[in-house]
């Protein structure tokens, strides 16, 4: 290929790239993307966002040291009460299949009362859950609980999540109730 032809090709690619950038900018600034939570992403956007989320969480959570006593009953009690107050509205509880949040949020929050987490081995799952609870996920409705909760309290919630799918509605009620409640 002669240098002249090569330059023409590069120029052609540069023009095509510029046109694509301008088209993308026009698409964004004209407000053409349907941003409503009741309209699902197209497949490409969904794949991109999910891949970014999963890869980012996996990288960030990989070095976290998991406590060895996550199966302690005291952790279940502490984490269960917090889960019931802070998480159950979106992530549900045994015997409840949907809420206004699960119907309205996009992406829909996962139902943590059902055994479905397939993210690697148990240690990876614990690391991942700890990181997500502590730092949250941008533009998903999942807040970062880290600013108001210390690590121990977040690990208690992770401990509770490990047993949540095993609980019946009656067990859930007893384990998550705050014993020192005013109603008691």
């Amino acid at each position, binding site marked *: 290929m002669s240098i002249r032809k090569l330059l023409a090709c590069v120029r052609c690619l540069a023009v095509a790239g510029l046109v694509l950038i301008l088209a993308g900018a026009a698409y964004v600034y004209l407000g053409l993307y349907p941003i409503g939570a009741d309209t699902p992403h197209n497949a490409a956007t969904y794949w991109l966002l999910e891949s970014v989320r999963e890869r980012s969480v996996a990288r960030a959570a990989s070095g976290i040291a998991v406590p060895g006593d996550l*199966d*302690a*009953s*005291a952790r*279940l*009690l502490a984490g*269960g*009460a*917090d889960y019931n*107050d*802070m998480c159950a509205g979106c992530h549900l509880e045994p015997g409840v299949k949907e809420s206004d949040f699960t119907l309205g949020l996009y992406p829909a929050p996962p139902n943590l009362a059902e055994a479905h987490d397939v993210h690697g081995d148990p240690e990876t799952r614990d690391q991942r859950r700890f990181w997500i609870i502590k730092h949250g996920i941008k533009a998903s409705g999942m807040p970062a*609980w880290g*600013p*108001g*909760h210390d690590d121990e309290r977040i690990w208690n919630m992770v401990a509770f999540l490990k*047993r949540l799918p*095993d*609980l019946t509605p*009656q*067990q859930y*009620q*007893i*384990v998550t*109730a*705050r*014993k*020192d*409640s*005013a*109603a*008691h």
Partner: protein
Amino acid sequence: MQVRLRKTGAIALSTIPALLVSLSVAAHEPEKHAEGAKAPDCAAMKDMDSATMDKDDPVMQAMMEQCKGHMESMAHSKSSADSGQRDHGNEKASEGSAHDH
């Protein structure tokens, strides 16, 4: 000038702790959630299948911990009811034996 600096220092010294205290209060405190929260429904435990309950299971231990007071009072009322029934039975037996005589 020196008075002004001292005044600014005093304001800073009183504002920073107040700000820190207010931030710590704004954090999610379990005590706040305890108000109006539901108490554990320990009565439901008696309907559970005790054959499938493993006392070494952390879930079971957590439930026992939550319902410790309830179970103790249930055991106490059961034992007093049993002893009452036994006393009542003894009275009946002694009445019966008195009649026999």
